[in-house]
């Protein structure tokens, strides 16, 4: 074994995207010492890919907006499977989090009055997304990164050491979260650059590792989205909630093959882009579900008028929640009305001038021009569904982001579950990162106050080190690249956008078989920046996540949000009362059904009872909320 580096911190944050950095800022401002650990360079996290904006009911463009409307939209989008308390906190606190970014130097696009501009997005009743063209995620990550640097500069001035309170450990993989006596004691990992091992002793660990997209074949996620935090949490004894729900973003690029899956922002539709099939039909009018008929236009004339007069017309169906649009595109392509490369057409060139397109959607223009040779100011894009976001994640206590069952462990951002229910609205992710990143920081601060120290035992260190060394000592074993490709085939074909019980059962068997073989993964080459070595650990995480997703998907016999069962096509109010909780017993993932926390009266009363009848059982309606 190489020599072990040891550090002691109050808090270790795993992941340096929006949620991790926001958590780190909160903990640091309370005086704690924080290690930020990330697999990539500082500032490269997947948050950078968010394009459309951050949802917050500031009411800058339409002053009818407020947290209650945002809460309602979020619950509707999630088909009422959301944890009501998370959706409530999110809707209430998002505006403050956006204004806070502005106070740290962020420069959002402006309204005529000079306020932060807000744009329309699928599922949001009013223009609500604070944005910077179509590169809002970059603005968010850079602002947070620069805020961290600003705090380090203060530390440098005040005590001569910029890293006295926050240190960024970039390009470091965490392989294990360590516990002693049932509580968090730290984390173990290795530098990607040289393979040297690192021990963090800390009483609190915040997981902010993002998503799981790399489990699937076609995804908008980068190599980092391997479900590390989901798997680390499971192995540390935490639960995952509702892992069957994955969001397939309706519009990923479909051609050329090398960029298949890369995201085409929903802003294209928010700015007036329309979807057509190969027959030239604007097909979304055929796919408006019953529950949305009152707010979406059923004819082109009204849909087009909405762009000019939103108070007196219903919204165009292109702006339905993402799950609806993704399924519609999937159906069109399956019915043989797809494009040459298996997608549908998305066209914004007929509604906006070239100049306006380049101004409002600059990175989309750039992306299509340079990667596909398509000029979106003149021609339509070809798009199709891509695995984008996991709604499921670590089961947390909403106010503190504390992982249930593991004292000292916290989770925020995409890796946490509950907030988005069965389907996330576009724009609710960036605001989620900020709201719950901050809350995880606050939760850790409160926890560390009563649990100030942590020590990791020698045995835990030896065991963790042995697990890292293992793949090097296996000669002639399995290749992690091939196993990863096999896993992606299984998830794509059998647990993808449309599922059946039989296929999911087959997937569970196949995933178990790949997992058995993965125990024999061998790594060629040394420890120094060796991607084969890195993938061996990522693969293990992805396999656990896939198992959890497949097993949850098999049990849920209905279709809701990001879970569509061909053999159970409708939504069922009985199933709305159930969360699926994944836990890990050391060998396999087990799923149990758990009652969904019922919504309190004051939130229940925010809805028209006739709307709730579409989602809830008569008994629940009669009860009228939990208190």
């Amino acid at each position, binding site marked *: 074994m190489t020599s072990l580096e040891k550090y002691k911190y109050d808090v270790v944050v795993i992941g340096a995207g929006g949620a991790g950095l926001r958590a780190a800022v909160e903990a640091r401002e309370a005086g704690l010492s924080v290690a930020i650990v990330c697999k990539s360079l500082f500032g490269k996290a997947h948050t950078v890919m968010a394009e459309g904006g951050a949802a917050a009911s500031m009411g800058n463009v339409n002053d009818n907006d407020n947290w209650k409307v945002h809460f309602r939209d979020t619950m509707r989008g999630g088909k009422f499977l959301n944890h009501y308390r998370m959706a409530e906190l999110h809707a209430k606190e998002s505006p403050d989090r956006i204004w806070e970014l502005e106070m740290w130097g962020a420069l959002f696009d402006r309204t005529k009055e000079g306020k932060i501009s807000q744009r329309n997005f699928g599922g949001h009743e009013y223009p609500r997304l604070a944005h910077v063209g179509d590169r809002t995620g970059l603005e968010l990550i850079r602002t947070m990164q620069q805020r961290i640097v600003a705090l380090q500069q203060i530390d440098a001035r005040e005590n001569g050491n910029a890293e006295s309170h926050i240190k960024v450990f970039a390009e470091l993989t965490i392989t294990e979260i360590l516990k002693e006596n049932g509580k968090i004691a730290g984390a173990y990992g290795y530098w990607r*650059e040289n393979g040297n091992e690192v021990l963090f002793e800390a009483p609190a660990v915040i997981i902010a590792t993002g998503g799981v997209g790399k489990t699937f074949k076609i995804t908008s996620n980068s190599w980092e989205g391997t479900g590390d935090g989901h798997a680390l949490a499971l192995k540390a004894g935490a639960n995952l909630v509702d892992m069957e729900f994955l969001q397939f973003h309706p519009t990923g690029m479909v051609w050329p093959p090398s960029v298949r899956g890369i995201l085409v922002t929903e802003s294209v539709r928010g700015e007036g882009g329309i979807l057509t099939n190969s027959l030239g039909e604007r097909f979304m009018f055929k796919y408006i579900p019953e529950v949305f008929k009152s707010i979406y236009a059923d004819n082109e004339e009204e849909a087009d008028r909405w762009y000019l007069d939103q108070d007196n017309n219903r919204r165009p169906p292109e702006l339905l929640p993402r799950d609806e649009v993704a399924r519609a595109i999937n159906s069109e392509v399956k019915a043989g009305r797809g494009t040459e490369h298996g997608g549908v057409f998305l066209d914004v060139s007929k509604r906006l001038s070239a100049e306006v397109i380049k101004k409002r959607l600059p990175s989309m223009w750039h992306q299509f021009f340079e990667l596909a040779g398509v000029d979106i100011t003149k021609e339509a894009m070809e798009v199709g569904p891509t695995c984008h976001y996991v709604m499921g994640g670590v089961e947390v206590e909403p106010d503190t982001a504390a992982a249930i069952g593991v004292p000292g462990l916290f989770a925020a951002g995409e890796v946490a579950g509950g907030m988005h229910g069965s389907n996330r609205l576009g724009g609710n992710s960036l605001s989620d990162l900020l709201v719950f990143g901050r809350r995880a920081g606050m939760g850790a601060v409160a926890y560390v106050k009563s649990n100030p120290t942590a020590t990791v035992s020698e045995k835990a260190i030896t065991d963790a080190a042995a697990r890292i060394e293992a793949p090097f000592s296996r000669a002639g074993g399995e290749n992690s690249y091939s196993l990863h490709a096999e896993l992606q085939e299984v998830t794509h074909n059998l647990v993808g956008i449309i599922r059946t019980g039989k296929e999911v059962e087959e997937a569970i068997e196949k995933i178990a078989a790949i997992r058995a073989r993965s125990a024999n993964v061998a790594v060629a080459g040394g420890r120094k920046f060796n991607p084969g070595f890195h993938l061996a650990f990522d693969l293990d995480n992805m396999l656990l996540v896939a198992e959890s997703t497949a097993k949850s998907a098999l049990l849920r016999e209905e279709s809701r949000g990001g879970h569509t069962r061909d053999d159970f096509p409708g939504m069922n109010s009985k199933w709305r009362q159930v969360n699926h909780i994944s836990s890990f017993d050391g060998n396999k993932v087990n799923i149990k059904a758990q009652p969904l926390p019922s919504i309190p009266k004051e939130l229940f009363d925010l809805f028209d009872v006739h709307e709730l009848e579409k989602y809830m059982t008569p008994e629940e309606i009669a009860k009228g909320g939990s208190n």
Partner: protein
Amino acid sequence: MTRKINLRIWRGDATDGALKNVEVEANEGEVVLDVIHRVQATQMGDLAVRWNCKAGKCGSCSMEINGKPRLACMTQVASFPEGEEITITPLRAFPVIKDLVTDVSFNYRKAMEIPAYEHPKDLAPGAARMEQVDVERSQEFRKCIECFLCQDVCHVIRDHEENKKSFAGPRFFIRIAELDMHPLDLLKNRKQKAQEEHGLGMCNITKCCTEVCPEHIRITDNAIIPMKERVVDVKYDPIRWLGTKIRKREGIV
């Protein structure tokens, strides 16, 4: 359509290294990063390369392709003539860690030297009012994805390691310009500091940085030259600038 292409990939570490020839398949529409990944998955499992988003948004896969600093994810294989070898090497201005991965910590140290944004303390959350036209100037620079290609190409440091100490580089000149043009930032004299502390004067405007910028930020024209001009003006002719229409009321605009 699939074709065979020949790559020469630099392999090695800080102590030693050499170009290795490799033949690999390339499919229609693929970028250089795709074929590097194919090499990695089929022939060189331990080939080190940084990448993330694969869409030109994160700035991780910076390298030199046929000697030119580029993002591998935005460089089409088809942009090279058929039959021509493609040479792939790590960024030259930074120390090699392994293969195509370099130690870019220089840039993070420089980021630490630029004083942070200072927000007016009496401005309540949500109370800020800025005109779109005024934020756009800084927004151009905030498009930066920190790929550090501009830093790599800049000959002030590319061939002169000794200049690194006193030269922040184009990426951080646009950071200073961005803060300088920020309608609300309170810190004064950013341009003067750029000149005196961050080596703005060492830039002799060859525009190489602008040429390699994948975000097409007009680094030289919109950030470096305006700052240089105003620093010079204030130094030699302050009266001329006192009379100009300015937004930020400070000694030097």
